[in-house]
Structure formats: structure tokens, C-alpha cells
């Protein structure tokens, strides 16, 4: 049976991206169609203008349909936004039969208990990710089935967000109309896309510097151990520049892309960059070192905030695979060096892996989230075929 193509859609703050992927021989994912539209009506990863966003999504999907020659009816969708948080929960059950050891029933039971978590009533669970089992006092058990013990516990990581905001993103797509097969947190997608199997095993932090939000995900021992969103992104850097030098947003964006650097003090103090004159703008110049100072202050603060949060959770210490930076913000000059300075860990720019096809889609870090989502879609499809019990383990279930 041929595997149907997977369509991934990301409604980002700066652009809406749609990718169509097909599974080829040897489990290789090939991107056969892309669609992209500059985003209007999204602020900090959340929909603020329904009509505009709908139009953008339509444009992107139509482009993807055209280039892939596939009629799109069903999509996978990423979500992000400053409201998304994670928390870990432990569920414990007594083992039913001491003689026979831990059975499949016990495992299903403990999954149920661990997932039954109290979150505020206005929130929905986006993912529950099983961390590891504990049998009595023995921690970090991967497959408890058949082991002997009196108590079985499971730690899960729950990623949750505000229901109305999640639904607003979903509704823009459903209104087209289009079916949403699953909703996945953007940070998880990026991590799937950019991390090597080795990094996933030995631990790595993925920071996705998006336009409106910065998503971060910590992988360790093949599972997501922490995740979160900082509602500050590349737009903030642009806004800072616009306010510091009294220039328009588009000029600030250009300054950031062409002359920006995340490190302060690299430029000569007297060096200036000129902004060419435009209609209604006489043209002027800006001190390069001051520009870098403004960018550095913002990016350093963003990174320090993430560091602070992850340190308080204690998930950073076992990281062996370093930090992978992705998202459009990874294009910022010297940003990897700043990450290394702040975190004291090696940092690389992550690009989508394990995927081929249309050149642009496999190239830049800004496509990591979407191509990760395509891979996620195929993984889910495969685990669905293996059986519903397994699905519960591997799939980040949407609690709706």
C-alpha cells in the first residue's frame, strides 16, 4: 500500500509555510511541493487577525498544491505561542500480579494515571511524552514488561497551552475548510528535524528563534525532557532597532539582516552603516557598534531567560550533544557564538536533516519546523499501522 503524502503547515509570525512530503524507499522523506506566503495577522506566534491569516494560509496551500500536484484535504499543523508550557508528572500504580511480573495491562494503567493530570481548566494538553518507568526504587527503566516489582511508576512530560489560543490557530485552517490530522508543538518539530540520532540520545537543546516566539526543547535519552516558549523573537529585535534609531520597521529589518550581529564590540566604534534615501526618507546613517549593542542586549536577554528557566528545572546538566540553533533567527550573524557564551556549551546552526527534495525546503533553518512536522506525520502514520497501543506511547496525543 502506498503511503499517502503528508502536508505540514506552519502559521508563523513572519511567514506561513506549507510543505508536501512523500515517503520514498528506505524511509526517506522527499519534499515534493512547497508553498509560502508572508504572514499577516500573526503576532508572537498567535493569530490576531483571523481573515488575513486565513487568506495567507489559502495562498500557501494553493502554492503547495500546484507544485506538488496533490489535492490537499488534510494537514498537520504546528502551534506555538508564549502560553505554551510544560510540566512533568509522575503516575504510580501497584503491580497486579507479583508472580507474573509487570504486564501490558499494568503499563497501560500507569500511562492512564500519569496522563490524568490537573491543569488549569482553560488549558489543553498538546503532548504527553513518556519519560521513563520506575519499578519500585529502580529508576530509568525503558521496558518494564516482564520485570518483577510491587510498584510501577511513569514520569510524563505534559506540554500544554491555552485552549482558546490553540483553537484559534486550528480554526483558521478548519474554516478553509481543511481537516487537521494533528496539532504538534513547533519546538518538537524543529527538534525532530535538526537533531541527529546521536544528539537525541546523548542530549541536546534545540532553540528555534522564530519571528514572534523562541521555542526551546531539550532532548535526552531519546525523549523530550523539557520544552517551552518564550514570547520574544526576531520581531522584537527589529522593533528594538526601529525604536533605537527612529527608523521604520522595514528599514530596521534590513539593518538587522544586512549589518546586524549578535555580538557587541566587534565593530569599530566609528563605523557607520548608511540607510539609502527613499521616498519620504532623506537617508541617514547609523552607528554600527550601537546597532550591535541593541541586538546583543536583546538576544542575550532572550538566551539568558531560557538558560535561567532550564537551569531551574535541572535539565541542562546532562546535555552531551550541545545546542542546535534553528529558525529564521539563526541567520543572525554571530548568534551561535553568543549562545556558546551564554550557555557555555557548543552550538551549531541546525538545518533540516533526513529530507530531500525542492532545494529551498531542505536548505534554511527557517524550514526546520515544517520539515520536522512532515517527518512527524510519517512517524505517526507508521505507528498507527502498528497498532493503537503503540500509538499511545509514541504519539504526542492531543487531549481534545
Amino acid at each position, binding site marked *: 500500500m502506498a503511503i499517502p503524502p503528508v502536508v505540514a503547515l506552519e502559521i508563523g509570525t513572519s511567514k506561513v509555510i506549507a510543505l508536501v512530503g512523500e515517503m520514498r524507499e528506505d524511509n526517506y522523506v522527499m519534499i515534493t511541493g512547497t508553498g509560502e506566503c508572508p504572514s499577516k495577522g500573526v*503576532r*508572537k506566534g*498567535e493569530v*490576531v487577525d483571523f481573515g488575513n491569516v486565513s487568506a495567507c494560509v489559502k495562498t500557501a496551500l494553493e502554492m503547495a498544491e500546484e507544485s506538488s500536484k496533490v489535492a490537499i484535504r488534510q494537514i498537520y499543523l504546528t502551534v506555538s505561542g*508564549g502560553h505554551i508550557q510544560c510540566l512533568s508528572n509522575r503516575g504510580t500504580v501497584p503491580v497486579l500480579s507479583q508472580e507474573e511480573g509487570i504486564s501490558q495491562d499494568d503499563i497501560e494503567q500507569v500511562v492512564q494515571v500519569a496522563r490524568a493530570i490537573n491543569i488549569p481548566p482553560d488549558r489543553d494538553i498538546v503532548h504527553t511524552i513518556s519519560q521513563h518507568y520506575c519499578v519500585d526504587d529502580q529508576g530509568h527503566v525503558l521496558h518494564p514488561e516482564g520485570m518483577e516489582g510491587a510498584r510501577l511508576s511513569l514520569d510524563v512530560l505534559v506540554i500544554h497551552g491555552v485552549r482558546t489560543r490553540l483553537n484559534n490557530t486550528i480554526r483558521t485552517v478548519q474554516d478553509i475548510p481543511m481537516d487537521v490530522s494533528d496539532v504538534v508543538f513547533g519546538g518538537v518539530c524543529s527538534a525532530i528535524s535538526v537533531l541527529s540520532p546521536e544528539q537525541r540520545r546523548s542530549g541536546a537543546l534545540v532553540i528555534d528563534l522564530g519571528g514572534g516566539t523562541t521555542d526551546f526543547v531539550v532532548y535526552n535519552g531519546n525523549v523530550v525532557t523539557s520544552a517551552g516558549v*518564550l*514570547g*520574544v523573537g526576531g*520581531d*522584537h529585535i527589529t*522593533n*528594538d532597532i*526601529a*525604536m*533605537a*534609531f*527612529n527608523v521604520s*520597521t522595514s528599514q530596521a529589518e534590513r539593518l538587522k539582516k544586512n549589518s546586524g550581529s549578535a555580538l557587541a564590540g566587534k565593530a569599530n566604534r566609528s563605523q557607520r552603516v548608511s540607510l539609502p534615501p527613499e521616498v519620504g526618507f532623506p537617508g541617514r546613517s*547609523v*552607528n554600527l*557598534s*550601537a546597532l550591535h*549593542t*541593541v541586538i546583543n*542586549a*536583546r538576544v*542575550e*536577554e532572550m538566551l539568558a*531567560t531560557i538558560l535561567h528557566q532550564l537551569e531551574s528545572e535541572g535539565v541542562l546538566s546532562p546535555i552531551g550533544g550541545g545546542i542546535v540553533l534553528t529558525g529564521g533567527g539563526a541567520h543572525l550573524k554571530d548568534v551561535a557564538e553568543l549562545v556558546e557564551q551564554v550557555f557555555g556549551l557548543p552550538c551549531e546552526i541546525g538545518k533540516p536533516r533526513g529530507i530531500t527534495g525542492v532545494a529551498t525546503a531542505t536548505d534554511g533553518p527557517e524550514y526546520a519546523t515544517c520539515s520536522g512536522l512532515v517527518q512527524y506525520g510519517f512517524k505517526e502514520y507508521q505507528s498507527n499501522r502498528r497498532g493503537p497501543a503503540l500509538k499511545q506511547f509514541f504519539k504526542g496525543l492531543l487531549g481534545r
Partner: protein
Amino acid sequence: MIGRKISVVGIGGAGARIVGQMPSDADDGPITFAVDTDTCSLVESSATERIQIGEVVTAGFGTGGDTQQGREAAEHDTAKILAMLENMELVVVVAGLGGGVGGGATPVVLGAAQEAGAATVCFVTLPFDFEGAQRKAAAAKDMEALREICDTVVVVRNNSLFESVDSRDIAGVFKEADSLLSSGVYSLYQMLALPGYLRLDLADLRRLSSDTKGECLFAAAGAEGEDRASKAVESLLTGSLMEQGKLAERARLLMLSIVGGPDLTLKEIGQIMDGISSTVRPQCRVVMGTSVDDGWIGRISLMAIVGEKRKVRPQVETEIPQQPVSEHPAEGPPLSPIAAQPSKKRKRRPRQERLKLEASGRGRFKDVEPTILDGEDMDVPTFIRRGMRIEK
């Protein structure tokens, strides 16, 4: 032994009085100067050197609160001032703002200090509330002038300074307030000039000034005997100069100097720093330094210079004219006769209304829900929240 060449200059009546209170008799004290136009106030001051300025301008009297006269007097005797500041590395200026000499001569002296190649720190007092709005406005104007020219301006509000004084009678109150201020200035001197193991130096001071746009507040306290460390830190933090601790809570930057005798222990320093860090916000940058003065046995003096968390530009709003001028510019003359009256009396020049400046600084994020983390609005540019100076 003087490691660095530091002089303390008191300008005007208040400055001369405060400088006179400094323990300058010791061999290692700073060189103190009193500068004023009024010969009487100079005679009373016990500064090392007393310099009369503007002999021609005021004929040995005060200026009567005229800033212009104060400035002229100083400009007349620039040569004298330059001679006194020769070869100095740091000039600490003490003055009361709102007065003629304090307000007028101070910028001239600071200019001369810069010309002489010295770094400048200015301790200024702001007038009491009861001295009237005019004097306050004059002081605010002087402040603007100082900020232009001085590296670091440390502000002491007379109101809070006098709250922290116990005395009842007026002479006692002033004497104590002066001595509090002079001891603060003195501990700054001790910090910079005396030997110590954890030193603060001019570079720290300069960094402080560049990070706070050159304006900070000041608090000082001291204690003797048993438990002196905890007593001193408590009275520093709860004193009225710290606004009963509120100032410390919203501080963005705190520079603390601890001066003790040879018996100052590491444990005491630890006690003091614990007290400070339990009060300030975690984001606050604390720099500290200690120095040892042989004469300070059994005593601890604390002096803090505090850079505040940046407020959301309150002065912007006061600049906006309150009257509803040109609310309906297209509708011709105002309809209300009351509003029309003044325009008959005097021809009003058409004025460009200023748009209400956006006070929050959130820019394009003004209509979305703010991202608040640890009480800070992350949508406001980081450089604004940190009060960094950006060269345009």
C-alpha cells in the same frame, strides 16, 4: 599616602559647608576646596583651601539665587579654578542645586575639571519641597546642565536626607545632614584612594555612570561596636535615603562601598552582602568594594550609590499641553466663547501640536498582550529597560 589624586570641591553655600565637615585634617585625607562668591560662607568653611570667585561680579556677597550671576562669577575666575584642579585624576563636586552659585558655577567647575583631564562625580542636593516650585524648577534645570557635562551625578533629595536625621533643632538638623553627606563623599574618597583587597576604582564608577545615564541616588549609614555589620546594613536599607528599602528593591544597579578599620572581617562583609542581596531584585547588578582605614577601628561605614530601574518616562506626559488646543483644527475658530477670549486679547502663534509620545516604548507590540516575565515587559526594548545609552 595618596594613591590617586582626588580633590573634593564644595561649591556655593551648601557645598562649602559640607566640604568643611570632611575630616580633612588627617594626612591621607583628600584635598578639599570651598568655592563661593560669599566671603562669609568661605570664612566659616574649614576646607583645606578656600577660593573666592566673582569678586568683580558680586563684590564678595552672595548671588541672591541668580544662576546667571553664579555662572558669570565662575567664568570670571576660570583661571583660578583651573589652577586648583591641575593634575587631578578625579574631582568630586558637592553642591546644592537651586541656588545661584551651586547651580551656576558648578557646570563651569565641571567643565574646567574635564579640561584638566579629570573624571568628575557630582554630589548634588535637591531643594526641600517647602522651598517652592520655582527653586525646584531651577534645580531641575541645573540638573539638565549637569547631566550634559558630568560623568556621574549622584542625587540627594533634601527631603529624604532630613528625614533620616534625629535632631530636632534646626542647627543640629543641618549639621547632621551635612555630616551624613560629607561622610558619604568621604567614603567614596576612601574607597578610591585607600588600600583595600576588594577594590572599586574609577573604571567601576565610570561604568556605573554610563549604565545609568549618569544619574544615581545616594545612601549612607554607619555603625560601631558589636554587631556593627548587621546594624549598619539594616540602617542603610531601612533608612529614609533608601526610601525605607523601596529604593533598594527597584534598584537596577548598586555600588556599595564598605569602609572599616583593620579589624574588618570577611564574615562581616559577608553579612553585609547577604543583607543587600536579600533585598535587591535578582536582576540588580551589585558591585562592591571594601577599604581599610586605620582610623576606623571598631567602625563600619557603608555608602551606596544606586541606579534606579528606569521609569516609563514620566516627564514626557507633563510636556504635553493640557489645554485642548486645535482639537478640531478644521472647524475654524473655537465655538466656545470662553475659549475664544484669550485669542482676542493676544494673537496666538499657531503652534504645532505634539503627538502624545508613546510612553510605554512597546512600538509595534502596543496592541498585543504583553509578555511579562519577572515583572518586566519583554516587549519594551531591552536597551531601554536596562537604561543603556545608544549612540545614534
